[in-house]
């Protein structure tokens, strides 16, 4: 093996191990945060017994789930029943691999006694796999998440699980489209689908939440639907479907679904911060774009973590505030509001970019500010439409009963 190959393998494996463990700890933290924050919103304290402030509660829960009895309902399709929790877990894991989480570290060159020389030329990008197909990969992989839910619903041989699976396939397929459509605008602006390039573009101009506000709102709503989080958690609507697709699961297999849900949420939060909030960028300074160093790495890592945490908080905040949509409302929102708005927005952004380029503006601060002004107008218009009940209305489309003469 050449020193370069060894250096590459070393960097890759260290990144994989570190990202995976940090991410798993993040999942633990997310379950804790969910329960604590929900409790605080209801004037309670939540789990605060195990470890400092209850932080070790997820460990206790995990241990409990390991020790619990696994139940096998008689009619389940066993291979698929086992496969389903894994299928729902893996896509979010794969997605995280393409998210850059910090400024690059400097390359290295050292020699170990037995293993020999390791070299890595140039900066080490802080992303597990800096794929050139960036978020095409994300779209492809995140669509696979629906398989876990559908397989779980089908293999359980239970009506509740089955209905949950069917609902989730309809829901995730519908919202997948507006998710992808809102991403197209990001693609138009950055001119590249690599996520590290998306971050670099935002560093050069403005964060895309300002330049593409409507796309951000669309993405946030579709992300909630993709993660089956309230107000879109119809696949596991407990009032109607017991626990939906994971009704028949117990012990560690149930735990896998639980972990997968929070893992997907964390990945989605990281993705939102990367696509719309500058990733590991620190605003109002160009210090973080300097040559690679350990200090820059640590500070930008913190910035990325803070952004992700903020969105995690928002996710939980939304969950414990908004009631669940009815299924027809969900579909109406997805197909009749989100999709047309997303499509129209792609047109508007494309036109705006064309005009700006014709006017001789290059991607930069002024370019971003022009787009921001456009977005303010569009957002106000959309909010006005939404608020008047023109775009989203519960039972507006039902036939009005006629008054007795």
């Amino acid at each position, binding site marked *: 093996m050449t020193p370069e190959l060894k250096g590459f393998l070393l960097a890759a494996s260290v990144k994989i191990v570190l990202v995976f463990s940090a991410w798993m700890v993040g999942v633990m933290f997310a379950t804790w945060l969910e329960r604590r924050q929900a409790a605080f919103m209801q004037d309670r304290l939540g789990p605060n017994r195990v470890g400092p402030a209850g932080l070790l509660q997820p460990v206790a829960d995990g241990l409990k789930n390991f020790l619990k009895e696994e139940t096998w309902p008689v009619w389940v399709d066993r291979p698929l029943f086992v496969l389903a929790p894994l299928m729902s877990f893996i896509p979010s894991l794969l997605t995280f691999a393409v998210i850059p989480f910090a400024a690059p570290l400097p390359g290295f060159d050292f020699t170990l006694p037995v293993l020999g020389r390791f070299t890595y030329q140039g900066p080490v990008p802080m992303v597990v796999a800096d794929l050139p197909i960036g978020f095409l990969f994300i779209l492809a992989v995140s669509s696979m998440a629906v398989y876990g839910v559908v397989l779980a619903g089908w293999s359980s041989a239970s009506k509740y699980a089955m209905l949950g699976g069917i609902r989730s396939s309809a829901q995730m397929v519908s919202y997948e489209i507006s998710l992808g459509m809102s991403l197209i605008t990001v693609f138009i602006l950055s001119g590249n689908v690599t996520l590290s390039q998306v971050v670099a573009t935002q560093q050069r101009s403005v964060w895309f939440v300002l330049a593409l506000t409507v796309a951000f709102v669309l993405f946030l709503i579709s992300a909630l639907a993709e993660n089956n989080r309230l107000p879109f958690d119809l696949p596991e609507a407990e009032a109607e479907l017991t626990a939906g697709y994971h009704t028949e699961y117990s012990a560690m297999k149930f735990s896998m679904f639980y972990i997968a849900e929070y893992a997907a949420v964390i990945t989605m939060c990281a993705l939102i911060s990367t696509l719309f909030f500058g990733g590991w960028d620190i605003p109002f300074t160009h210090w973080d774009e300097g040559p690679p160093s350990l200090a820059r790495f640590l500070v930008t890592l913190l910035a990325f973590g803070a952004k992700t945490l903020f969105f995690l908080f928002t996710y939980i905040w939304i969950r414990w*505030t908004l009631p669940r949509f009815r299924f027809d409302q969900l579909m109406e929102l997805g197909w009749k509001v989100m999709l047309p708005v997303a499509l129209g927005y792609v047109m508007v952004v494309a036109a705006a970019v064309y005009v700006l380029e014709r006017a001789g503006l290059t991607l930069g601060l002024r370019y971003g500010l022009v787009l921001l002004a456009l977005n303010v107008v569009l957002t106000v218009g959309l909010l006005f439409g*939404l608020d008047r009940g023109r775009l989203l209305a519960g039972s507006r489309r039902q036939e009005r009963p006629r*008054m007795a003469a």
Partner: protein
Amino acid sequence: MIGVKVVKRPESEVSYLRAALQGMVVTFRHILRPKVTMEYPEEKSTKEWSLSPRWRGTHRMLTDEQGRAKCVACGLCPQICPANCIKLVPGEDEEGNRYPLIYEIDEFRCIFCGYCQEVCPEEAIHVGVHYENAEYDRSRFVYDLERLCAQTHQVSTLWDPADPKGE
């Protein structure tokens, strides 16, 4: 045809968007509010909440100055007990004083009505202001005389002294 009156409500009341945003503000405010949770093993009563002095919990037998049970084994409490949970075998010493040879209360059978305390002429048996009764063994729930005398918790007043007729 049944006529249904459709009430036209103002948009500010039916707007999903405004309602959702208002809801978000409400839940966020609640994060900052003081919490109502009472952390049980450390904190058993607060200013807002404490056990009523009229609480009827597990029994306690009061004792006299010599440490003997006040009970004279009259037999009124097993007589009145609706759950039939009191077992009393009376005895008599050389001076003709009656005392209980066996006095057992099955706390599983007991319905905590407090009749035993009400009927007792010697104010010996009482229901107590007490609720932490967990045991590892079912047989431990039959309290014998020694155990009943050894209880130290506050006894129930059964009625509010300020309002004896319950008005």
